[in-house]
């Protein structure tokens, strides 16, 4: 829907013009900004409902990466003797799993966000971008809980923290941008094609093994290692290890490649989403 909002200062209220949508439209991020309170409430709802509906509540946020870490430690660390850049394997795995869990949950939940909120889409207007964005943002709480656990594990293994930890917010943002970008693509596709939903678990599983969580990316020689960074989660996971555990080298070019790839996914995803937006209410 191409809604040009013209702020006419002479009249008190903005004039909204509703016209048929044609071709590529602008992202109307200002519209999203206008609705920031709604975004806040949607995030708040997602968090509240998630912790109310499940018996274990917040514990899930911790158990999920924790059990994966245990399994990885037994099978990859113990049995397969996977190298872990000289770091105790459990810390190595969990440092990757914390941002990964945030990413994977954000991706799958945002992909289903439009279909799950079909009743809202057909009854009330708000910038549709708010739905996938809110689901990804609500995952930050789970992530914070997982980070507390990670802190505990790091203390147990006596890992020292360096100033590089200050990069964490930027790396989290990178994971968020990636999850949102993929989520925008998939949620819009999911409205039109319902079989997208079934491909999501498969996609996240393949992506998990295409990301150096169970193994270090140092297994790859340069320049492949930098190219590997085109998977944005490679940059995130290696970045986390560098920032928290002080792995040998700063993954400089890898992060650059990851950031560019993530931005590309986000921008194309946002445009695709906007383009499909006008038919959501008719199709969903």
């Amino acid at each position, binding site marked *: 829907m191409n809604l040009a909002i013209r702020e006419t200062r002479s009249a008190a*209220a903005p004039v909204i013009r509703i*016209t048929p949508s044609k071709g590529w439209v602008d992202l109307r991020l200002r519209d999203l900004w206008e609705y920031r309170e709604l975004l806040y409430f949607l995030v708040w709802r997602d968090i509240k409902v998630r912790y*109310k509906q499940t018996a274990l509540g917040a514990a899930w946020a911790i158990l999920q990466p924790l059990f994966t870490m245990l399994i990885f430690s037994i099978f990859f660390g113990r049995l397969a003797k996977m190298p872990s850049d000289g770091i105790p394997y459990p810390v190595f795995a969990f440092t990757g799993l914390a941002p990964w869990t945030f990413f994977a949950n954000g991706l799958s939940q945002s992909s289903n966000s439009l279909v799950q909120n079909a009743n809202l889409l057909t009854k009330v207007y708000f910038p549709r971008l708010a739905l996938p964005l809110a689901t990804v943002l609500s995952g930050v709480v789970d992530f914070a809980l997982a980070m507390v656990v990670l802190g505990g594990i790091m203390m147990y293994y006596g890992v020292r923290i360096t100033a590089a930890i200050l990069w964490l917010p930027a790396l989290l943002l990178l994971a968020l941008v990636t999850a949102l970008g993929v989520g925008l693509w998939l949620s819009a596709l999911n409205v039109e094609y*319902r*079989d997208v939903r079934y491909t999501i678990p498969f996609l996240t599983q393949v992506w998990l093994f295409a990301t150096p969580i169970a193994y270090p990316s140092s297994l790859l020689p340069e320049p492949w290692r930098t190219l590997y960074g085109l998977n944005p989660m490679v940059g995130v996971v290696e970045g986390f290890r560098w920032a928290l555990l002080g792995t040998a080298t700063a993954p400089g070019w890898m992060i650059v490649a990851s950031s560019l790839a993530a931005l590309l996914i986000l921008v194309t995803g946002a445009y695709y989403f906007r383009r499909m937006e006008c038919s959501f209410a008719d199709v969903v």
Partner: protein
Amino acid sequence: MDIAVRAEGLGKQYQLGARQASYKTIRESLTAAVRRLGRRSREQRTVTRWALKDVSFEIRRGEAVGIIGRNGAGKTTLLKLLSRITAPTEGWVEICGRVGSLLEVGTGFHPELTGRENIYLSAAILGMNKAEIGRRFEEIVEFAEIEDFLDTPFKRYSTGMQLRLGFAVAAHLQPEILIVDEVLAVGDAGFQRKCLGKMEDVAKSERTILFVSHNMAAVQNLCTRVIVLDGGRVCFDGDSSRGIEHYLRLQDVVRQTSLADRTDRQGNQRLKFVGVQLLDSSLRPLSVAHSGQGVTLCLKYECDGSRPMRNVQIGIDIVGAFDHRLLNLSTTWKNGDFACVAEAGEILCHIPRLPLLPGRYSLDLFAAASGEMADYIRDAATIEVEAGDFFGSGKLPTLGYFLTEHSWSLEGSCKAAPS
């Protein structure tokens, strides 16, 4: 000029059947694309329908406008366009001011959250900001009469409480332009009156209202102007009394165009209703029925392919004001599904003593054969009920919906007061 809403040449096209069909899958889309390539033609053979066409109007600030029309006339589509839920196919709308749209009661409620949490959530979704919600919170709770249940999860509320809370939130929305779709058609009569009262307050407060309803009394009461839609086009725009007359005439015309020609029906049409007639108990035609009278509803039908049909189930809904289904009569409830019906004929439904108060009622007809819906047509006919001597006392109540046989007695004897 102080214009709140201006629509120009508005049109919305839907793909017919697109909604009923199961959702597309990638596989189907790919095979369809390959097939199109093979045929070297890009022609699309989807059937489309204009739900709305060439609709133009201007609404001044502070006007209360009723939008009326038969089912499928495009009212809801128009409201959806105005509230930006869906985009028009052609034409444009200009809206000046904050829009609040109320297309259902309880938009955004989540069953797991408490009443308090839901008030905040729903109000935010409907467009209120946090400060506003805080200011109106007490009022909303009071209006909904749920003080004691504020911290109970919404899913434990009774249906009545859910509706009350939904409307309470909506009623306290104070946008410059309020768009309301038939939401008053819920709840009990007392609550409906309360809602209508609230709407009247809104109408008096200089705000612009667009109001869709089947309740002509409410429209007459609330609106100074009426837009009548028919077949997706505006067929009347002006003074509300004249508009309502126009609409009622339209209803009659529709009924005269015979049921057989109506296309706004669902089902596979293997059995189709082609006429309805109101008869008395000895099968003489009636123009109006009286409360308490024995009546017979005669449904004329035809079968596709002129074959007899098996396992035929027939239903009649009697629908009152506010679009309420008051009665559901069905062969199923009486274990009377027809094992086999002839290719054409009449089905009769006898009601020994009509239990309805005076008023205008419409009939929805339903037929299924061998478990599949054959025909469903809303508003197939109206029946006019006039006062009749139901109780044999010459008196009828003025409240309620129904009449039922009942008797009164006194338990224990009444002693004369001691002197």
